């Protein structure tokens, strides 16, 4: 960490840090944060919906088991295999792409590119969603059936239950889960790299570039980059703490 503050000659300096605010570094941060944010929120939302669908009464228990175990594998499905699978699905010659083209709608003609930020986001969802499902499932278990029934009995529709009782009760766990998803995406490297061969500019890739010797100007830059990541995550945590406290003020 300390290396972040040293220059080429190992003298103490802030110049590395200042450099971070220039292109391409600042772009890398922006992209990283955006991707992480988007996939965390979307993963959080859809993960909650899918997890709830699998856990609620009325759904056979086996569905939950399948979903949970599958999520366990999928949550760590990354890097080359994941990139590979998505190339095979929605890449230029992918199964879905071909199928859509045959049905008359050409994705690339509409501006869709797998090797882009959006493509990376779509691929990231493959491990963000399951991660969310796994983390939020126990919290959903804690939603007592009596609350749902009491709410219905008092006249609430489904969405009203969620708005006044369900989500507030889940909020502390939700926040934790989303932070986790953010961190997960932020640190993800291999998938983006494989998918884009480094063309999508995110921070871990930059760091990797330094270590693999692609650009070896100032080794401390890499450390500065890492430090920058650390700062971003620290900021997230600082946001998380008061939010979490507020959402849990009704517990002991």
């Amino acid at each position, binding site marked *: 960490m300390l290396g972040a503050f040293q220059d080429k000659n190992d003298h103490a300096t802030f110049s590395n840090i200042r450099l971070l605010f220039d292109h391409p570094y600042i772009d890398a941060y922006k992209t990283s944060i955006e991707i992480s944010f988007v996939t965390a929120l979307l993963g959080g939302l859809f993960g909650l919906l899918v997890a709830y669908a699998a856990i609620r009464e009325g759904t056979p228990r086996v569905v939950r088991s399948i979903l949970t175990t599958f999520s366990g594998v*999928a949550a760590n499905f990354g890097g*080359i295999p994941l990139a590979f699978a998505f190339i*095979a699905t929605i890449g230029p010659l992918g199964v879905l792409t071909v199928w859509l083209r045959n049905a008359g709608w050409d994705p690339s003609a509409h501006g869709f590119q797998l090797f882009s930020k959006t493509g990376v986001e779509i691929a990231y969802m493959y491990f963000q969603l399951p991660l969310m499902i796994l983390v939020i499932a126990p919290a959903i278990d804690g939603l007592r*059936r009596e609350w749902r029934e009491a709410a219905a009995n008092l006249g609430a529709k489904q969405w009203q239950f969620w708005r006044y009782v369900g989500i507030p009760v889940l909020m502390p766990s939700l926040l934790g889960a989303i932070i986790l998803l953010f961190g997960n995406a932020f*640190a993800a490297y291999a998938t983006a790299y494989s998918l884009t061969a480094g063309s999508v500019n995110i921070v871990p890739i930059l760091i990797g570039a330094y270590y693999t010797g692609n650009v070896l100007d100032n080794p401390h830059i890499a450390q500065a980059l890492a430090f920058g990541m650390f700062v971003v995550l620290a900021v997230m945590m600082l946001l998380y703490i008061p939010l979490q406290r507020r959402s849990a003020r009704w517990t002991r």
Partner: protein
Amino acid sequence: MAPSAYLWLALAAVYFLLPLYATLDFSLKENKAGTPCCTLSNYGWVIHNGDFWHTIKISFLLALETVVISLLLFVPTIYWVHLKVPRLRPVIAFMALIPFVVPPIVMVVGLLRTFKGTPHWYYAEPWGFLATAYVILAFPYMFFSLDAGFRAIDVHTLTEASQSLGARWTTTLFRVILPNIRAAALAASFLTLAIVMGEFTIANLSAFHTFPIFIQYVNESQGFPAGALTLLSFLITWAAMLSLLLVGRKRGARGAVIAGAR
């Protein structure tokens, strides 16, 4: 089953299964591009490869080791925090994010330096050095899963009830608390298992011969079996989890008990 449940589960199924299907489709082709379906030669190649079985075994055992150590380490800790010092929770959450920030190379270098003086068996075999690294890596996932699980139960009441019946801490922990956070603990274990079975960078940098290393090698040297290998590794990891689930179900009591409900 509620219609909205069908909807979301169906959508999830499509999203998850489509890429897998695409991989399957690809894997059934021969070594030359553009051949029509369908051949199992790629699968045959994988299964008859000695390295495949060797590395899978190593990774799987490593994963189990990591899971056990992580659970032993983190469950009591998080339990303690929830019970006695809830104020520490955000602090630990913060610490839990650190593994995300640290680039793998840094972790390897750091660990190598830290464990310089340790005996050879720890250093050179994956069971010591790599397991440590993986426990650290698994920490965020363990923490947030278990945290959600602990929030969903009434830790205080359960503990007090158990203590009033004369149980020691260990009994309370294993017989009362653990069964009630079973869902969370299993989720955390699955994540850890998958992490270990898929972790490449650290293993590579510290020169251990694990399953992901093997996958990478195949990916780089021969393209077509890679698809088959991907699917197989996916299926095998999934099977490992199902077995974990069954073990958890047979031994432990039923999951989260909601008192008062029929």
